[in-house]
């Protein structure tokens, strides 16, 4: 029964978040919903990073870069591609069945946008007689996820021979190059101005007769929540599979694993692909939720936040990393309120990150496997020591009786 406690608690947490939007009704409803969506987003990143770094031992600092790949892929896809029943004769376009796939020309962030955008010029000329269709957001998210996997595959292949600090530095370099490239390619990516994206449910959503507007947070809440559950289910399945065992062996000793028949190359690349696809999917959904993606989202600071969440939760347990991310996101938000000690006002909007840093340092010093993973281990493995001793004593008694 004791061993089932983490599973039972897990189900309780899932049920809690599944009903939460329907039972919570305070004035700050939208704000709390926003924190939940952001917490789920970070939970996907932290848990997938935990599989990559905690389980497989591949300390990558490029996870936010892969998140950015997903976000920018769907952003560019939705920003530049349209379907039109008529040829614009201004844009690059290809006939697809009865329609035309229109590729809008990149215009950067110039002030003469309207005159340079070929599609807008065509729409102006048509004067409302022709209606173009934007690309489906879901397709953009799928493409973003696939693109994240492709980048993960390439980086996975490039870092095959790199370990520890070299791997960390390489992936850090990748993320920074990606950020710098996006910032520099103003013509296509709009640089620091960022690309605007259509909302996740641009035309609203009707479920069981109830219609949600596009600004309603509940559909996005459940989209991110279900994405988190799907990622956790995949991570759970992987961790219990022989692949999960192989990547943990890879973490412990790559040469020994290979000498025992484990295809370490395949495991390494596969774990990169799976986890980067999760990061890319989370990035794509989050970008559509926020409505804009800028290179600042790929900053090293963001990566540090994901690492800290996973470390404080428990890097070697993806569920602990996910819970850690959710708890920390809430704590960081709660710590925004300032308070007074006597005549001194503590501005928590600044100091909260200091407290957060201290918590991270204390965790690393006193609880290397985080604050939540040891609790899970207590329930799942707390009996092992006693069992070992009792078996040893029984064996010794048996040997004594035989003599």
């Amino acid at each position, binding site marked *: 029964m004791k061993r089932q406690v983490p599973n039972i608690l897990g189900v309780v947490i899932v049920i809690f978040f599944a009903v939460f939007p329907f039972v919570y009704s305070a004035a700050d409803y939208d704000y709390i919903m926003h924190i939940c969506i952001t917490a789920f987003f970070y939970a996907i990143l932290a848990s997938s990073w935990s599989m990559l770094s905690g389980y497989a031992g591949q300390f990558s600092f490029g996870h936010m870069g892969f998140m950015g790949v997903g976000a920018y892929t769907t952003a560019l896809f939705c920003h530049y591609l349209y379907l039109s029943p008529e040829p614009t004769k201004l844009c690059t376009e290809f006939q697809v069945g009865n329609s035309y796939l229109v590729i809008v020309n990149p215009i950067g962030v110039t002030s003469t946008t309207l005159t340079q955008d070929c599609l807008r010029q065509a729409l102006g000329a048509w004067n409302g007689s022709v209606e173009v269709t934007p690309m489906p957001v879901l397709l953009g998210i799928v493409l973003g996820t696939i693109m994240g996997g492709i980048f993960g595959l390439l980086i996975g292949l490039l870092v095959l021979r790199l370990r520890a600090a070299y791997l960390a530095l390489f992936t850090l370099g990748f993320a920074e190059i990606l950020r710098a490239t996006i910032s520099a390619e103003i013509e296509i990516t709009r640089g620091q101005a960022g690309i605007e994206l259509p909302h996740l449910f641009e035309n609203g959503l009707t479920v069981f007769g109830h219609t949600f507007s596009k600004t309603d947070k509940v559909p996005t809440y459940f989209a991110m929540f279900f994405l988190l559950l799907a990622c956790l289910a995949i991570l759970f399945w992987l961790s219990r599979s022989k692949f999960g065992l*192989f990547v943990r062996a890879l973490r412990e000793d790559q040469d020994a*694993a*290979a*000498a*025992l*028949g*484990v295809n370490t190359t395949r495991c390494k690349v596969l774990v990169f692909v799976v986890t980067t696809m999760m990061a890319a999917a989370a990035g794509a959904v989050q970008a559509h939720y926020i409505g804009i993606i800028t290179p600042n989202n790929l900053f090293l600071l963001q990566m540090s936040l994901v690492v800290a969440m996973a470390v404080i939760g428990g890097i070697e347990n993806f569920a602990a990393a996910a819970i850690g991310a959710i708890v920390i996101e809430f704590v960081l938000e709660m710590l925004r309120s300032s308070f007074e000690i006597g005549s001194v006002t503590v501005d928590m909007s600044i100091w909260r990150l200091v407290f957060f840093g201290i918590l991270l340092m204390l965790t690393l010093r006193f609880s290397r496997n985080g604050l939540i993973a040891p609790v899970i281990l207590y329930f799942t493995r707390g009996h092992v020591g006693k069992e*070992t001793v009792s078996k040893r004593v029984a064996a010794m008694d048996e040997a004594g009786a035989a003599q």
Partner: protein
Amino acid sequence: MINLTVRGVHKHFGGLHVLKGVTFDIKGPELIGLIGPNGAGKTTLTNILDGAIKPNQGTVYLDGERIDQLQPYEVALAGLGRTFQVTRSFRRITVLENLYVPALAMGRPESRKAIHEKAMSVLEFLTMDHLRNEFAQALSGGQQKLLELGRLLMLDPNIIILDEPFAGVHPKLMEIIHDYIERVNDEGKAIIIISHQMDSIFSLSRRLLVLNYGDLIADGPPDEVKRDPTVIEAYLGAEEDDRGGAQAKGTRDS
């Protein structure tokens, strides 16, 4: 029928020639001791046989298949397993899971239950069944060596290379390792033991290979090799009861 053919294997690291055209064969379930002074090239030869490093020249065939250009996991799947000089257990994985790794990697059509039962019988043989759910990091150094041997039983290769299996092991555990080697050899596996424990090497081996700075200077039955002046000069030195042999004594003293 086990057939390992090593032909003219040469390996150099920069200007340092570690192996200089090593050639030998293993046919059938032989029990071979590989000895030589430190820096003789024993571990390099093991790494080449195991696929961890590639030779500059020469070939290695296992049962007719060329293996010197294969990856280590492919060599393992082809039927050659090894342990390491410094024990390499998967420390933060349980003892049972350590044993599951090679069995699952082999991809044999065995059920999880069959693999578990086999792992349990291996642990019983190694007198470690009470430790099955412990993380390997909780084991003593000797027990970790036993665990490495257990993993090889799960891998079930035809040729096993044991690199220093007796180093730093308690006499009681050494008995278990001796039993292990004899049992596995009786089951039809060829075993190469690399060790500086001469008593164990001479009592177990039926053939000795002696490497000296990259050259294979002797290959034959232990009694013959023991008396080989080249081997005495290069590695063994004079026996305590053979102090009259000026050449050998001189070697030891030098």
